[in-house]
């Protein structure tokens, strides 16, 4: 009898050990190959996009959904190694410097009731990430929010002492290997076998989001003379970008270079319509009466005196209709006539003269940044006749004019030519992020049944700051990079299902 029981026990153990197995098992590494790429030590270099910045802040779950972290998850299927990131301390996202908050918390989407969104609000709470607390070790994700191209090669960019004066970056200060380290140096020191490089967005973005409130530094390669919102000289960009590629490929690493999307692809510039002013007939008539003198007397007079051209006078006409109206803006490129208006024969008071000094009505070619949404239609000093964007023109930083867009586009085209050229010259992968984000902005992109568009909040592609992607948007970027790796290195890595990645976070404070 005992014999039988032990026999049964033996058979039982035999079968229990025999768990189901696939013919081609992902877990056993039967399915994917990295081809000619060596993914064992992957380093990602870049700015906020690489860091996983979203919703106006850097926070843990955003970092977990950074495109490099998503990539590393797929790389692990074909020889990828561990991937470390300089994680923040919390999911609030704010930064402290010696206990003082220097970067705001993340945005969350608040709701009034079950179906009515109130819009993005800053998440309340005391952040716990102290810039002065330096993390030890090196990190595979070398993405530094706010970094421009030349910052990555600038010694001292991670020196915490330089954070208050703006010479150093608080995010990099957290994990720089030493106060005089460079981002590129810290990346190269890890001896990457594979890298991604996505840098240059901030070389134009600051200019764009500030409504062109900066200088186009084209022709000036001395970055030490640049302001925060300036456009980087394309020659300087080409130089430092080439230096980065050379450094990262020095020991034969493979990699992918990503180009720069159009600023017009992001909801930050496409959400607030340029004809955002609804007026009834009576109000329009009233406004036209007020601008009547300006349109019919002042402008022709200035043309007569030879102060402005007939063409400029035409551009400067302000006229309202019943229905939607283009906002009024201050355009720095126009002749400033405020001083002249205070003198004879106009004799306007200084306030009115300043208001009319560089005013024109926006056209469909101008862009109103998301940051102006809270200003449009509000009253100045509670005076019902002083309406921002109507009787009071939007200031220069609240509009990105056609001319300013053109400056950006010229620099961007040059940067992108540099990126693509270096990818081809070095046999690296090249991802055209510009093209895909154009698609996202124009009708959307569908992947495995999930569509993302650049519509603010509802589109799923962009986070609540209107500039940075959601995890779902980052997943789309990761898939593009994977496709390019497969094409360049004969690998067969799978992409991810973007529908499994979140969009915006709903939460009320």
């Amino acid at each position, binding site marked *: *009898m005992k014999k*039988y*029981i032990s026999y*049964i026990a033996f*058979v*039982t153990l035999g*079968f*229990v050990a*025999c*768990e*189901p*197995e*696939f*013919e*081609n*098992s*992902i*877990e056993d590494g039967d*399915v*994917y190959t990295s081809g000619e790429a060596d993914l064992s030590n992957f380093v990602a270099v870049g700015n906020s996009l690489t860091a996983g910045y979203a919703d106006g802040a850097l926070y*843990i*779950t955003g970092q*977990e959904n950074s495109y490099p972290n998503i990539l590393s998850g*797929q790389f692990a*299927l074909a020889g990828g190694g561990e991937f470390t990131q300089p994680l923040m301390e919390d*999911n609030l996202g704010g930064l402290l410097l010696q206990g003082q908050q220097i970067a705001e918390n993340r945005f*969350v*989407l*608040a*709701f*009034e*009731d*079950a*179906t009515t*969104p109130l819009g993005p609000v800053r*998440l309340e709470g005391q952040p716990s990430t102290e810039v002065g607390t330096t993390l030890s070790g090196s990190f595979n994700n070398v993405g530094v929010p706010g970094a421009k191209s030349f910052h990555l090669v600038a010694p001292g960019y991670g020196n915490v002492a330089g954070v208050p004066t703006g010479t150093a970056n608080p995010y990099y200060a957290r994990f720089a290997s030493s106060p005089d380290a460079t981002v590129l140096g810290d990346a190269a020191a890890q001896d990457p076998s594979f890298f991604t490089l996505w840098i240059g967005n901030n070389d134009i973005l600051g200019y764009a989001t500030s409504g062109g409130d900066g200088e186009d530094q084209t022709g000036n390669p001395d970055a030490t003379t640049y302001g925060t919102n300036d456009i980087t000289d394309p020659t300087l960009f080409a130089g430092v970008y080439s230096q980065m590629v050379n450094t990262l490929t020095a020991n034969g690493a493979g990699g992918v270079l990503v180009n720069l999307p159009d600023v017009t692809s992001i909801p930050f510039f496409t959400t607030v319509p340029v004809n955002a002013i609804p007026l009834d007939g009576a109000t329009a008539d009233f406004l036209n009466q007020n601008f009547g003198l300006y349109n019919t007397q002042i402008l022709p007079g200035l043309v007569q005196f030879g102060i402005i051209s007939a063409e400029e006078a035409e551009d400067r006409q302000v006229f309202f209709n019943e229905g939607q109206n283009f906002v009024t803006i201050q355009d720095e490129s126009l002749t400033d006539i405020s001083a002249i208006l205070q003198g004879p024969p106009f004799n306007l008071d200084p306030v009115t003269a300043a208001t009319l000094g560089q005013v024109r009505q926006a056209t469909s070619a101008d862009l109103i940044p998301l940051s102006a949404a809270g200003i449009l239609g509000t009253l100045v000093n509670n005076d019902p006749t002083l309406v921002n964007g109507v009787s009071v023109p939007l200031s220069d930083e609240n509009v990105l004019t056609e001319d300013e867009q053109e400056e950006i586009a010229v620099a961007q085209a040059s940067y992108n030519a540099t990126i693509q050229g270096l990818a081809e010259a070095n046999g690296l992968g090249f991802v055209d992020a510009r093209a895909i984000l154009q698609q996202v902005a124009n009708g959307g992109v569908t992947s*495995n*049944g999930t569509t993302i568009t650049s519509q603010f909040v509802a589109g799923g592609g962009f986070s609540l700051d209107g500039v940075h992607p959601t995890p*779902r948007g980052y997943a789309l970027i990761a898939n593009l990079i994977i496709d390019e790796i497969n094409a360049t290195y004969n690998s067969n*890595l*799978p*992409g*991810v*299902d973007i*529908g*499994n*990645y*979140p*969009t915006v*976070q*709903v*939460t*009320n404070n």
Partner: protein
Amino acid sequence: MMKKVLLSTIILLATATVFAGGYRVSTQGQRALAMGHTGVAVVNNAELAFFNPAGLVYLENKLNVAVGANAVFSDVVWQNEAFGQSAQTDSPVGTPLYLYASYQVTDWLTAGVAVYTPYGSSVEWEDDWAGSHLVNNIELAAIFIQPLVSLKLSDYFSIGGGPIYVTGSVNFNRNLNRTLTDLDGNRSNVTIDASGVNAWGWSGSFMFNPFDGFRLGVNYRSEIILDAEDGDADFENIPNSPATPFADTTFDASLPLPAEFTVGASYEYDKWLFSFDYNRAFWDVYNSLDIDFADESIPDSENVRNYKNSNTFRFGLQYQALDKLTLRAGYYFDESPVQAGFFAPETPRNDSNGYTGGLTFNVTDHIAIDAAFLYLRFEEIDASYDFYVENGQQVPFEGTYKSSAFIPGLGVSFNF
């Protein structure tokens, strides 16, 4: 007191990993199981109380008891090559059990009682795995308790049957959708839990013995619907927002335990016995698993199942090797009730082949040990569940599944 302890022990133990079509668990007797779970036309021991109560009256002894339990070792692996995802279940070992007794009151009347667990499921995927919006884990248990009567109308023909009292429980956890989390990235999920869900049903059968050594049997067990009312629904990791109004509440849901019709035959010759059973399980009653939350601000959960009726073909062989030793073997083909496009990971079952074996050792004239095993073999299958809906859009959950189950069991038979 004793009865209460016994009942609660049964309730605790009677969870079984699903391993037959749907959540049917075919382990209602070691002797039958060893012969491919055939038994509607086999007069062997008290297992007849389940397989064909009409046959109880033909048992030779006055008192017959059979008691036993099985251990279910079951695993499912899943992978999706398009996205490089993989997962496997880590399900607890299920222990379905049975207790049958019959007593010959007169020459033509036998009374009996049966306690058994023909339905159950226990599937545990890794939390937050790729299919977590469909299921993280599920545990389903149902105990059938049945008084029986068996009437001999002649030496050729008998009938039997009785009412069935069922007490069941269910515990089910899944994530609310594919992406919703709280502020810290913890996935929003719901657990529904109901126990002490009671219902009634019945079974009836007949046995026909036209000539020596040959028997025919027919058994029918009715459909039983478990209506869970006011179960607990526990929502976790919900963001603080009026847009996500998921507060803990109660729920109503119905889970059908389908009817099963069996017809079979056996033929005994010398030391050999051959048996054949055909089961028809009426799974088409399982249209949809609908969870109706009491809180009206929480949308009800509709999970389309659309099962179809399914067949099982069973073959068994018995050989009287020694006076004290009987050997058995069997095979069956078990058709899955799950239709293409409805393959949900909470019951990830395709067609399977069951290989069985076992033996009985007569310790004395009155006590016998029954042992059996079942190995269930499933083919690798590419399948999808297409009826998960998010934002008004169907989001299929696809992948390759492979399952296996090994189920050994031990039992004891008494007769006096």
